[in-house]
C-alpha cells in the first residue's frame, strides 16, 4: 500500500504508523462528560467502505494527517484537509 504524506508525497506503507479512527469528533479540551469521552474513545463506526483515520509519517517527516480510505478495497481516497 502507498500512502500520501501531505509533506513528502506518496510513500511506502512501511514508513507510517496508524493512529486510529478519525470519524469521532474529539470533545474540546476541558469539555465533555464521561459519556461524551466514552463515545469518542471507545465506540466506532468501523464502516465497510470510506473511512476517516489518522496516520503519521513516523519514519519520515513525522506529519500526522487525516486520511480517507476505503476499508473494503484499501483504496486511498485522499487526505482530509483540516
Amino acid at each position, binding site marked *: 500500500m502507498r500512502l500520501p504524506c501531505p509533506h*513528502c*508525497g506518496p*510513500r*511506502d506503507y*512501511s514508513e507510517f504508523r496508524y493512529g486510529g479512527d478519525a470519524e469521532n469528533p474529539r470533545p474540546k479540551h476541558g469539555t465533555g462528560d464521561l459519556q461524551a469521552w466514552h463515545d469518542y474513545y471507545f465506540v466506532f463506526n468501523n464502516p465497510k467502505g470510506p473511512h476517516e483515520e489518522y496516520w503519521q509519517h*513516523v519514519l*519520515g517527516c513525522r*506529519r500526522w494527517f487525516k486520511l480517507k480510505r476505503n476499508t473494503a478495497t484499501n483504496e486511498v481516497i485522499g487526505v482530509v484537509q483540516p
Partner: protein
Amino acid sequence: MLERRSALADAHPFAWAALTLGEVRGFTLTQAAVFDKAAEAQVAAVIGALPQENTRAIESNGRTLFRTGPLAFWCVGPENDDLAAQLQGKAIMTPLSHSRTRISIEGSAARAMLAKGLPIDLHTSVFTPGTFAMTGLHHTPVLLHCVAEARFELYAMRTFAMDAWEWLEDAALEFR
C-alpha cells in the same frame, strides 16, 4: 575542551572501487521552525533564500537547507555555525548537531546498495543530485541526500548510527 566522540568512533570506513563508506564530521545541524509564512520570511531575511520544494535541498550562504516540514527547516552549516543565536527570537531553534550522524556513501554501487534498504525510487532519473528524502532504513528514520550522481549523505539517528553502519557494511559486502 572536552573531546567529542562520534557514535562511529569504532567504525571502519572503507574505500573500494565501487563503493566508499565514511563519516562526515564537524558540521552544525540546526532546526528552525516557525508558525506562519510571515515568520518564515523573517528567517529568510537572515539566512537567505529558503527551499520551496519539499524534496530538494538548496545551498545557501555555505549552508545546506532542507525543508523538513511545512514550516520547519534543517540547516546544515560548518562547525560552530552560530545560526541558532542569529535566529534567536525569530524562530524556534533546536540544535541537533549531535542528534544525527552523517554517513557518506559514494561509488557506482551506491544506489544498488541503498535500494536494499530504502523504500524510495533511487533511479538516476528520479533521485537526482539535490534530491533528499526522509525515509526509513532498517526500521529507523533517516534523511538521504543525493549530493552528486554517485555520492549520498545519510543522516542517521545518533543512537542508531552504529546499527545503520553495520547494516550498510553488510549490504556492501557483495560490492567489495
